[in-house]
Structures are given as structure tokens and as C-alpha cells.
């Protein structure tokens, strides 16, 4: 691994984003709009936003980064720039790490905007420390990025890449506990939800919002456990993604 190359890749990804004003604006504004819509919907009832807001804070960076990464890396594969980079002294981890770093930073800005909006404007009740919401959101974003990177190896076109969203992301949204608590699902589905990373991402976010703790940093120890699972899945997907990057192709 070469830090110079890793940082060069990250800076380049961010520079590309800076040229694409429309995508950059959507990355920052859309999550805020969706959260505001949710708040408005539940405004009269007074309770729903506190229950559904935190899961959405976990879902949005995951979904957005999954889509953005799968399309950008597919582009990188089909335009020949990936082949060129791998014929240069670029290590696979420099490439993957550069993407993870760039999109992790974007996710951080995105989630800071979303969290500030939820807490200060929309009045979301957060029992735990507010900064922890951003930490969990960044972990979710990196998870989405690494899964997107992995599936981009199995798509030939951008159309196919986008179709992985209903295949990989939607089942996780259905089973993450947003609609029915995970322990109330049929046994098989509940077991399935136990092995899907998004379930832990949503659990972590909900726990931070619902519980305060006297332990380290005021964070419930269960959150660290959930976060470790999310990070572990992210690292595993990144390793699988690295295996799909081949210097030699047929």
C-alpha cells in the first residue's frame, strides 16, 4: 500500500465530484429533503419521527453510496482507466482505500447536514451523544461503498449496476426492522435479518437515539458491538471487491 497513491485517488474522486455540481448538490440536499418529508408526515402524531428518523439516517448514506460507488467503479472499469491504473504502480488497496476515503468524507459531510437538521430543526430526540450518529452514518456509507464496489464487478453496463439496488439493498431495507421489529418476524426471516449488515447499522442508529449510557463517551456498549459488525462487513466486502480487481484480464 502506498499512501501517496491512495491520497491521489481520493483527491481525484472528490475533484470529479466537484465538477459534477448536480450530483454534489443532490448528495447534500436530498437526504435533508427526505428526512423533512418524513418529519412532516408524522408531525401531527408527535411520535413516529423519533422512531423512524434514526433508521433513515442509517439507510440514506448506505443507499446513496452503494449507488454512487457501483456506477463510478463500473465506469472506471469500462473506460480503461482502471486497467491503466493497475498497469501503473497502483496497488489494489490504494485504489479501494482511495474510494473508501473519498466517499467516507462525502458521507461525513452528508450526515453532518442530515443530523444537524434532524436534531436542531426537526426536533429529533437523541438520548445518546449526537456525534455518534455521524460516526455510525460514516460506517454505513463505507459499507454501502464497499458493497457497491463488489457488485460493480458483476455488471457490464450502468443499467445492470443500478439493478443491483433492488437485488442487494431492498431486501435489507425490508428486513432491517424498519417495518416490523426483527424479533417479531417469522423465524426464518428473523434469522436472515441477523446476518444482513444493514440490520446492525439500523440497530446502532436506533440505540444511540434511544439510550444514554454512563460508559465511555456516553455511548451504549451495544452500539460499539453493532458498529463493529457493520465495519466488519464493510471490510469483508472491500476484500471481496479487491479480489474482483484483476491486473490481468482475458
Amino acid at each position: 500500500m502506498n499512501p501517496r497513491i491512495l491520497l491521489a485517488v481520493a483527491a481525484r474522486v472528490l475533484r470529479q465530484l466537484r465538477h459534477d455540481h448536480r450530483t454534489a448538490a443532490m448528495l447534500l440536499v436530498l437526504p435533508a429533503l427526505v428526512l423533512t418529508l418524513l418529519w412532516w408526515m408524522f408531525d401531527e402524531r408527535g411520535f413516529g419521527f423519533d422512531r423512524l428518523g434514526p433508521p433513515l439516517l442509517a439507510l440514506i448514506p448506505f443507499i446513496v453510496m452503494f449507488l454512487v460507488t457501483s456506477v463510478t467503479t463500473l465506469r472506471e472499469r469500462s473506460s480503461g482507466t482502471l486497467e491503466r491504473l493497475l498497469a501503473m504502480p497502483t496497488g489494489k488497496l490504494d485504489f479501494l482505500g482511495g474510494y473508501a476515503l473519498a466517499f467516507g468524507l462525502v458521507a461525513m459531510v452528508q450526515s453532518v447536514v442530515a443530523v444537524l437538521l434532524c436534531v436542531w430543526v426537526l426536533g429529533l430526540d437523541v438520548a445518546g451523544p449526537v456525534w455518534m450518529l455521524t460516526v455510525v452514518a460514516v460506517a454505513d456509507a463505507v459499507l454501502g461503498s464497499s458493497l457497491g464496489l463488489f457488485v460493480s464487478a458483476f455488471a457490464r453496463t450502468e443499467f445492470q449496476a443500478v439493478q443491483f439496488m433492488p437485488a442487494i439493498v431492498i431486501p435489507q431495507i425490508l428486513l432491517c426492522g424498519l417495518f416490523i421489529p426483527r424479533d417479531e418476524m417469522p423465524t426464518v426471516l428473523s434469522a436472515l435479518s441477523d446476518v444482513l449488515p444493514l440490520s446492525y447499522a439500523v440497530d446502532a442508529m436506533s440505540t444511540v437515539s434511544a439510550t444514554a449510557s454512563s460508559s465511555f463517551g456516553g455511548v451504549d456498549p451495544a452500539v460499539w458491538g453493532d458498529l463493529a459488525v457493520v465495519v466488519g462487513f464493510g471490510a469483508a466486502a472491500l476484500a471481496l471487491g479487491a479480489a474482483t480487481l484483476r491486473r490481468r484480464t482475458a
Partner: protein
Amino acid sequence: MMNNVAIEVSDLHVVRGGVRAVDGVSFSVPHGQVAGLLGPSGCGKTSLIRSVVGVQIVESGTVTVAGKPAGDASLRHRIGYVTQAPSVYDDLTVEENLRFFARVLGADAAEVDRCLTAVDLDAQRRQVAVRLSGGQRSRVSLAVALLGSPDLLVLDEPTVGLDPVLRRDLWELFHRLAADGAAVLVSSHVMDEAERCDRLLLMREGKILADDSPAGMLARTGEQSIEHAFLSLVEASTEGVS
């Protein structure tokens, strides 16, 4: 003392897309030479070039570059490689593309200016690549390959669709690089570029038909142009088979 052989290919076989693209090819290219790989589209030029760069899965045979197996990690900063389709980032400016690849290679920032001048893109440096013409985009791709003055330059059809004046300038540049000790392997399907090479490899259906200097090729076949020499070599080889 540096080994003078830049590229050594021995009995190379490549299957690409279910087709036998390279079928028992052997040749070597010394440092200081501009070697042209000529042949029609689909004759296996790209597969052969990809094998030299080390990005192609080969079926059998060996490819050695500067004494190391092709694709060896120590070669990655010594080879400049231009693919047929320009490999640049469409949403970055010309200059940003070059700066990025220069950072990856650890090349001096001054290299960016030198390479942009070499391909005559100084005026376009702040333009986003997607707004460039096809020829300009291939020049950006070529400029990236020139970064850091590589010992081996491998170019897959770099001059297609370029202005004749620029094409002449680029060939002069390739010869200057060769004079400084680099080896240059250029593929083309345009036979009139043949005379600009020190050495020609005529390729057809995965095999090397002839390997000679342009003058030697003409003398051998008694023809006036490389195009005719190619035709008479093809006829001679098919007669031999039937």
C-alpha cells in the same frame, strides 16, 4: 551493463473472447528502436500489446520485458501504455487528468507541462476531457503515457484520426525517445505509417508474417509500397498452405 533487449516474446499464444488471437508469436525489440506492429483490425495486435504490458491472460509462451516477466511489479513505473480507446477521466480537465496520473507515478509536477506540450495540448489544458474532440482525447491519453519518460512505450493505434502535421510530430517524438534509449512498440492498421518505423512486424490472423526493416521488406518482395508488400506476403503464405 544494461541488457539491450527491451521486449522478448517467445512462442506466445493468447485466446481472447473464445478466438485464438495470438498464435505462436516470437520476436524481440531492442532498446533504441521504434518497432511498428502492422496488420488489419482483428489480427491480434491488441492482444499481443496487452501481453507485453502484462494485462492480458496468456495461454502459453513467455513475454519478458527488460529481463523481467511482463507485468512484474518493478516494471509498472517504467512502461507507458496507451490503449486503443483513450483511458482518461471524462469529467476532469486535461491538466487534472495528467496531474492525477503524475501523482500516481510519483513523477515531477513539471512533467505535466512537458507532456502536454509534447502532444500540443497546451491551449486545451483547462478544458474538461468530455468536451474535447476524439483526436484530442487520444492525445491526452498519449500524454499520460509519456509521463516520467518510460523506458518502454507501448502504443495501441495512437495516431488514428490525428492531423497529419501532428502525426509527423508524434513520430518524431517517438524517434527522439528511442534515441534516448527507450524502446517503442506502436501498432497501426494504417500501412502508410509503416515507413516511419525502424522495424516492421506484419501481423495477420494471429501470426507474424514478416519481421524486417521497411526497406528490407520492400526489397524482399520487390514491391513499391508496404501495402503491396503486405499483399504479396499474404498471397505467398496462403499459397504455401494450399
